[in-house]
């Protein structure tokens, strides 16, 4: 009998499993559940993009692509980023196409972190940064963002956690799960600290195209002096509803992208070929699709924020992604209790805020990537549930 625990990697075994999965599993066992727990678009990939994928299969283009991704795709990515966020990159040397934004995050951390380096990670946030930083040999240091700051990272919060060992700052905005965004003025404050303390930044901007309000998303790499310190991560999953195609990219200083490309080359080879062809079509002809989906999300966002606030589950107005992060403290329950009782009583699945970091306790993540009838029905059920708590 092999003692598997002793043969496996200790660091890996010490990682916590994701807390989101549990509620999703409960939901998938029930009938008539409305799941506002799912962090992906409810839209299918736009048809012309799917067609581009189908055509590559029909033509038998089923081979590997170049390690960094097809040159045409890298060119289109660079044009897209320049057009949308006014940052210029060289498609030959400054881009690597990855298997989703996730691979790009992993490769970025592994390229920058030496054993013992501290990695600053704002929370609440996407669940992968801490475990991936640990697997890269880094020491995660949590920056707790606060509801009273609309869950933005402030320069003071950042400064307070910097030590001589600090190497990297992860900037996950627009944010999953809070929906917080960092506008230009907020990013400039952060940039000043980054420069002062000579930090590197991994800016995960996967939700950039889902930014609401009058002013568009500002990339951290577009802030004066930050391009040379930033690995910019984005992808196709959220903007183009292409989650299952598994395609993202990282852009940054030539020297760093060269090292990341080595990792990608040895570990992955290349991102899926048909996904890359579909992505070229998306970048060339998909602006209207983004706008249409964004305007749908925007209406749902207003509907659900208004609905939750009027039920006493107060939420600040999220300006990005497709999540609201209401405070559930008025119920007198913990986040876990609230979500568990809600799903059993009324069959509405949402995710406890503490799944995204300890400071998410007292909140819950509600995804509005769902239809308007489902959202209105979910609001009714939540109202009924709150009535039973009184």
């Amino acid at each position, binding site marked *: 009998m092999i003692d598997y625990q002793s043969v496996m990697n200790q660091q890996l075994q010490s990682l916590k499993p994701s807390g*989101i*999965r549990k*509620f*999703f599993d409960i939901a*998938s066992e029930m009938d008539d559940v409305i*799941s506002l*727990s*799912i*962090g*992906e678009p*409810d839209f299918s990939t736009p048809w012309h993009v799917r067609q581009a994928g189908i055509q590559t299969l029909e033509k038998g283009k089923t081979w590997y692509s170049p390690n960094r991704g097809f040159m045409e795709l890298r060119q289109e990515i660079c044009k897209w980023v320049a057009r949308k966020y006014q940052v210029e990159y060289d498609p030959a040397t400054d881009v690597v196409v990855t298997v989703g934004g996730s691979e790009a995050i992993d490769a970025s951390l592994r390229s920058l972190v030496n054993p013992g380096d501290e990695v600053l990670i704002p929370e609440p946030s*996407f*669940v*992968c940064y801490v475990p991936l930083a640990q697997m890269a040999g880094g020491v995660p240091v949590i920056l707790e963002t606060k509801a009273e700051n609309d869950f933005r990272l402030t320069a003071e919060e950042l400064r307070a956690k910097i030590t001589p060992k600090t190497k990297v700052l992860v900037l996950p905005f627009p944010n*999953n799960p809070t929906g917080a965004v960092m506008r230009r003025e907020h990013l400039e404050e952060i940039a000043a600290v980054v420069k002062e303390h000579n930090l590197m930044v991994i800016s995960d901007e996967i939700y950039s195209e889902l930014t609401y309000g009058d002013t568009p998303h500002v990339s951290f790499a577009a802030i004066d002096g930050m391009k040379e310190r930033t690995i910019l991560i984005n992808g196709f999953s959220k903007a183009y509803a292409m*989650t*299952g195609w598994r395609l993202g990219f990282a852009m940054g200083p030539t020297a760093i992208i060269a090292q990341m490309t080595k990792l990608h080359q040895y570990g992955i080879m290349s991102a899926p070929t048909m996904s890359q062809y579909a992505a070229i079509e998306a970048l060339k002809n998909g602006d209207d699709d983004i706008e249409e989906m964004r305007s749908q999300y925007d*209406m*749902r966002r*207003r*509907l659900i*924020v*208004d*609905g939750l606030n009027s039920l006493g589950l107060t939420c600040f107005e999220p300006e990005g992604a497709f999540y609201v992060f209401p405070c559930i403290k008025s119920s007198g329950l913990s986040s876990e209790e609230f979500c568990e009782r809600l799903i059993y009583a009324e069959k509405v699945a949402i*995710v406890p805020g503490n799944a995204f970091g300890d400071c998410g306790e007292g909140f819950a993540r509600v995804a509005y990537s769902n239809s*308007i*009838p489902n959202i*209105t029905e979910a609001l009714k059920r939540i109202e009924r549930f709150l009535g039973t708590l009184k």
Partner: protein
Amino acid sequence: MEKLLALLSENARLTPAQLAAMLDTTQEKVNEAIEQYEKQGVIKGYRALIDWEKVDQNKVTALIELKVVPKPDRGFDEVADRVMSFDEVESVYLMSGGYDLAVIVHGKSMQEVALFVMNRLAALDSVVSTATHFILTRYKDGGVVLHSGEDKDQRTGCVW
């Protein structure tokens, strides 16, 4: 306020408060706009979308193509007026192409619809010929998918 119409055409049961929230305006403005649309005849009414096949197995619907001789002064209007006056008729459209009027007719049985076409429609003096096509299954109606095994949320992967 065209977004308001789009929202109502998808779901007429949204409350003025919900509509106002979604459109970033006030309830008063939403109520006002709806009233205006109703007065102008832009909004013609509100009705439920019903899958009748689930309620009544015997309901039959047919699409009838009519070729007609237009009247010198009133064109197709006169015969269209006559055709749409029958209770059995749900919709009447003037078409381009191989025939003139498309008529959607309901009945309790194929025989009933056939008799209606023979005795009522074909009998009209400007009708030259008819062709009756029975609808076998409705997959999608009024923008709503009726027959599909894919009602359940199919997103079963990660939950990030």
